C-alpha cells in the first residue's frame, strides 16, 4: 500500500517554503504536516487551515477569571472577615469595588493566559516528557520540512518539489502505529 508512504521535502528559507506550499496545494497534493523551527507568518492561510478558535476560549477563560475574582473578594473581604481599611468599612462589594479592580484585572489575565496555554498544549497533544514527533531534527534548527502523502505519484511530486526549491527530498515508509 502506498497510502502510508510519505515524502519529506526540506527547505532552508521560510519565503521559499511559503511559495512552495502554495504551488503544492495548487497542484492538489495533500500536505500532511509542515515542521518549522519558528512560527511562519501566513503559513496557516497558505495551508488552508481553519481559523484558530483559541481567542473565543480566551474570552471565556477571562470571564471565568473575572467571576472568580468577584466571588473570591466578596467572600474574603465582605462576607467572611470585613475590615475597616482607611475609613472604608467593607460592608458592600460595590462601594469597595475600586479596591478590588486590580485583583479582578489580574485574575482575568491570569485565567485567560494560563488556561489558554493549557488548552493549546491539550489540542496539540503535548505534555511533559512526551517524545518529539518531528521526523527530522534539522527542523529544530534552521530547516523547514513539508510532509506530503504519496499516492503512486512519486516521480511527478519529486519534479514539482525540485522546482519549488527543496534542498532535499526523501521518500519514507511511515510507521503505522501512529494512526
Amino acid at each position: 500500500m502506498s497510502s502510508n508512504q510519505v515524502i519529506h521535502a526540506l527547505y532552508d528559507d521560510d519565503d521559499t517554503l511559503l511559495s512552495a506550499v502554495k504551488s503544492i496545494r495548487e497542484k492538489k497534493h495533500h500536505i500532511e504536516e509542515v515542521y518549522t523551527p519558528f512560527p511562519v507568518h501566513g503559513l496557516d492561510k497558505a495551508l488552508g487551515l481553519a481559523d484558530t478558535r483559541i481567542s473565543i476560549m480566551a474570552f471565556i477563560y477571562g470571564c471565568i477569571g473575572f467571576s472568580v475574582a468577584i466571588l473570591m473578594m466578596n467572600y474574603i473581604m465582605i462576607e467572611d472577615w470585613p475590615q475597616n481599611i482607611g475609613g472604608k468599612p467593607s460592608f458592600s462589594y460595590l462601594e469597595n469595588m475600586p479596591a478590588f479592580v486590580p485583583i479582578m484585572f489580574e485574575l482575568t489575565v491570569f485565567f485567560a493566559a494560563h488556561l489558554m496555554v493549557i488548552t493549546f498544549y491539550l489540542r496539540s497533544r503535548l505534555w511533559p516528557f512526551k517524545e518529539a514527533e518531528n521526523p527530522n531534527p534539522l527542523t529544530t534548527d534552521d530547516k523547514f520540512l513539508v510532509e506530503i502523502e504519496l499516492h503512486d505519484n512519486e516521480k511527478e511530486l519529486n519534479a514539482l518539489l525540485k522546482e519549488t526549491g527543496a534542498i532535499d527530498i526523501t521518500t519514507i515508509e511511515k510507521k503505522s502505529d501512529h494512526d
Partner: protein
Amino acid sequence: MYTFTNKLRNFSIILMVVGFLGLVYGFLSSPDTVAEAQAMVADAHHGEGHGAEHGAAPHDTHNDHQSPSAHGEEHGEDHHGEHLLHQLQNKPWAALYVAAFFFMMIALGTLAFYAINRAAQAGWSPALFRVMEGITAYLLPGALIVFVILALSGMHFNHLFIWMDPEVVAHDKLIQGKVGFLNVPFFLARALFYIAGWATYRYFSRKFSLAQDQATDVSNHKKNFRISAAFLVFYIVTESMMSWDWVMSIDPHWFSTLFGWYVFASMFVSGITTIALIAIYLKSKGYLEKVNDSHIHDLGKFMFGISIFWTYLWFSQFMLIWYSNIPEEVTYFITRIEDYNLPFFGMLVMNFIFPLLILMNSDYKRLNYFIVMAGIVILLGHYIDVFNMIMPSAVGDQWFIGVPEIGGFLFFFGLFLLVVFKEISKAPLHAAGDPYMGESERFHY
C-alpha cells in the same frame, strides 16, 4: 486628488452658523446680576431650596475662591448669590472652551501619532499620512483660538481660571505659593511657546512630506525622521505642561502627577479615531484606493488598545485618590461623583466598556461600520471627558448640556471639517514618494 465638495463645505458652514447662534444665545442669556442668577436657578429648580446643597463640604473650597466677597461670614446670602452668578456667567465661556480644547486636542493627538509613525519609520501607515496631515492642519488655528480664550481670561473677561483674579489670590495661601508659576504673563508666554513648537514641527514635516513626492532620493524622508524624533521629545514635555496649564490649573488647589499622561491618552485615542473615521469617509467616496481593510484593522487595534490605556490611567488616578481619601485631593472626585454622576460614569461606559466589547473581536475591526459606530461613541465620550475635566471647577453643579454646549461643539466641529478637508484637498492623497509606500500598499494582516 481630493476635491472639497460644495456639499461638505456648505454642511460645515451650516454647522458653524448654528453653533455660533447657540454660543451667542448662551452669552446673551447669562445673567448680569445676582438677582437674575437666582431667578434663573429658581425657575429651573421650581423654587427648590438651593442653598442647602451649596453648604456641602466639597463646595466650600470653590466658594472661597470663586467669589471675591467670600471672606465675610456675615455676607452669607450675598456670597452664595455672587458665587452662583459667577458660575452662570462662566457657563457659556466654559462651553466655548471645552469645545475649542476638544477639537484642538484631536489635532494635537493626531500630530503625535503621525510623529510616532515617522520616527518609528512605520511601514504600514504611509498610505494614511495625507489624512493625518490634513487633520493636523487644524492644530494651529485650533490652538490659537484656545490661546485667545486664555488671553481673554487673563484680561478678566471671565472667571474660568480663578487664580488669575488678584482678589482671590490675596486671600488664598495655596495659590500665593504658586504665583511664581501661575501668573498671567508667564502662563500666556508658555502657551505661545507650546503652540509655536507644535506648529513649527507640523509646518516642516508637511513641507518635507510634500517635497518627498517629487524627490529622487530620500533626503526629505530622513529630515522628516529626524525632526519627528526631536518633536516627540518636545511634545511629551509640552503636552504635559499644557495639560497642567490649560486644564488642571482651572482647579488650582488640586493636582495629580499623572494628569499629563491622562490628557495625552485622551487626545491620542481621539486623534486615532478621527484618522479612522476620515479615512473611511474618503474611502467611501472612492479615494484612498491604497488603504485596505488591514489599515482600518490596525487603526481599530489602536482605538481598542488606547481606549484601555486611557482607562488604565483614569483608574490609576482615581483609585489612589479614592483610597487615600485625603480631603484636599478627594474633593475633586466627590464633586464629580455627586454633581456629575451621569457624565462621569457615562464616560466610562462610552470610553471603556463600549469599545472593549465592540472592538475586541478581530473580524469586527475590519468592518467599517463597526469602526464608525465605535468611533463616534469614543469621540463623544472624550468630549464628555474634557467636559468633566473643566466644567466642575468652572460652573459647579450648574452644568447642563444645553444650547451653548451643543452650539460650541457644532461650531468647532464645522470649523474642524472646513480646515481639515480644505487641507486634504490641497495635495494628492497618495504620498507617492514615501520610501515605505510599497510596504504600506502590500500591507496585510
